[in-house]
């Protein structure tokens, strides 16, 4: 996802001279290095200093440029939070804050590097839009939308690198619209981010057991596609929401509220990170499992 973002951004920046990147001491991967070589003035490294990363983006945006702030999600969003709120959101500036390693992607680096609450925090700020694509192709489409938009601030939550493709058979990405990745009849999985891969794997496995599972990417968390989600809640007897985020302020609670408001009768089960700092280390899958998110758990919830 990181490399796809960089490649997509570079292609856009070659056509639009207003696009700039402000990073806080993160090594420019792949095409970002190329961008830096081609447009040295438009690539700014503030060093380990995230408040000025956001402040500069605001000032550059006020003078007509289109800056992207880019670093590890915890440092992109939490450290300069009030700058994002006051400088970007309060003033409604078209700046994209890119958070790399959303969720517990940086699984061996400990809680300081786990963006477990980022979607809830970003979504709480007025004017902020929140996008969390699930695979490299969806990242490409989301990035293309971000570089083109001029309306206001965006938090773009990405994973790291090497995520598999899961959107091959889906209709094109549309900002603010739920995207059906896989058709099904019995159960509908709603989710966002790379963790949705577990949902796709479970759907394939359960098909062999005669359970037909649909999977949808809710890549745009804010504004949420209420019109797109309500019919799913009405037409499926069972819905499973999965997200690599803490339960508070997440998609799960919002979907349950939507079901109540719309009078849906479906059963809703939610799978999320725990409301807990788990002091455990391992690969990404292992930390997710420590939080209770695994292929087996998804299969169990969907087939229960």
């Amino acid at each position: 996802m990181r490399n796809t973002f960089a490649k997509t951004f570079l292609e856009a920046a070659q056509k639009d001279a207003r696009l700039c990147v402000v990073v806080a001491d993160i090594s420019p991967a792949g095409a970002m290095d190329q961008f830096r070589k081609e447009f040295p003035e438009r690539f700014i490294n503030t060093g380990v200093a995230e408040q000025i990363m956001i402040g500069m983006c605001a000032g550059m945006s006020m003078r007509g440029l289109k800056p992207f702030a880019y670093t590890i999600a915890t440092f992109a969003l939490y450290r300069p939070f009030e700058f994002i709120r006051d400088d970007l959101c309060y003033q409604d500036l078209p700046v994209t804050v890119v958070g790399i390693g959303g969720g517990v992607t940086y699984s061996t680096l400990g809680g300081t590097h786990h963006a477990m609450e980022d979607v809830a925090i970003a979504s709480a700020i007025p004017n902020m839009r929140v996008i969390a694509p699930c695979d490299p192709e969806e990242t490409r489409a989301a990035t293309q939308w971000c570089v083109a938009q001029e309306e206001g601030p965006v938090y773009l939550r990405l994973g790291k690198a090497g995520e598999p493709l899961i959107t091959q058979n889906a209709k094109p990405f549309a900002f603010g619209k739920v995207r059906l990745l896989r058709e099904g009849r019995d159960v509908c999985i709603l989710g966002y981010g790379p963790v949705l891969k577990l949902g796709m794997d479970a759907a394939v496995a359960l098909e062999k057991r005669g359970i037909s599972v649909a999977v949808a990417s809710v890549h745009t968390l804010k504004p949420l596609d209420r019109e797109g989600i309500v019919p799913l809640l009405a037409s499926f007897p069972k819905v499973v929401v999965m997200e690599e985020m803490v339960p508070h302020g997440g998609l799960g609670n919002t979907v349950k509220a939507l079901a109540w408001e719309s009078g849906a009768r479906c059963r809703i089960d939610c799978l999320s990170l725990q409301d807990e700092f788990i002091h455990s280390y391992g690969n990404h899958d292992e930390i997710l499992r420590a939080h209770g998110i695994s292929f087996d758990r998804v299969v169990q919830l969907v087939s229960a």
Partner: protein
Amino acid sequence: MRPDEKRVSERFDVAAARRRCMQYRRRILDISQKVTALHAAPAFSCVEITDVIYRGLMRPAPDGKGFSDAFLMSKGHGCMTQYAVLEALGILASEELDRYCTPQGILGAHPDRGNPGIEASTGSLGHGMGIAVGMAHAEKILRSGKRIFAVLSDGELQEGSSWEGAMMAANLHLDNLLAFVDLNDIGGLEKMSQSHTAFYPLREKFESFGWESAEVNGHDCAAMHQAVNARRGGRPYALLCKTVKGRGVEFMEHVPIWHYRSPSKEEYAAAIRDLREVSA
């Protein structure tokens, strides 16, 4: 007129500036009678600073409307002064100042981006330096030659973010950034010169961060004008302006309560009687 005033008088009429500054203070006192909170004293400390920037240093736009350079009131609680200056320049309608802090109006006790002449929404301290650095770098990328003038408080230089910005300004060689620091010494709680002695010396701090810096009397328009025009250039520039909080109304000077308080009817009458042209 002092000799140094004479030297700059061809380009900047100091006597006229003094008259304007008294009028701004008078206007602010008048508005203070309509609202409960106004930040009169922190507005009064930066009256001369704001006037000399708008009237003596910012270059007008080629089409004659407004300026090609930009002004950023980083110490948002000083915005009454900016409003009064913008009103005198015809950028901000007088009716808007009359509707200050009312539901019918657009002006609040901190500046809002989108209002006439206002570049950024400030009020939370320590944000202006970063925004100004971004603006100045953008103008470099755009090859516009435009300059960014920012007015900061001494208090907000206690925020680490101000120094993140100061460091980046020098790293990016932003010689088009001019920061005026209103050194009125009075924080929300106490005098910084007594409570936070390590804050000083400030000029050396800016210089060690790669800035050019000078210290002047912040109520002396001639000295500020001259200092800016005498700068060597090639780096961001910090003009450290020593001021008096509440300057212009004797009973408000140096008294912390006037940070927020609006004068009562009797105090207003006394202030108007007391109001005088400030000379450096």
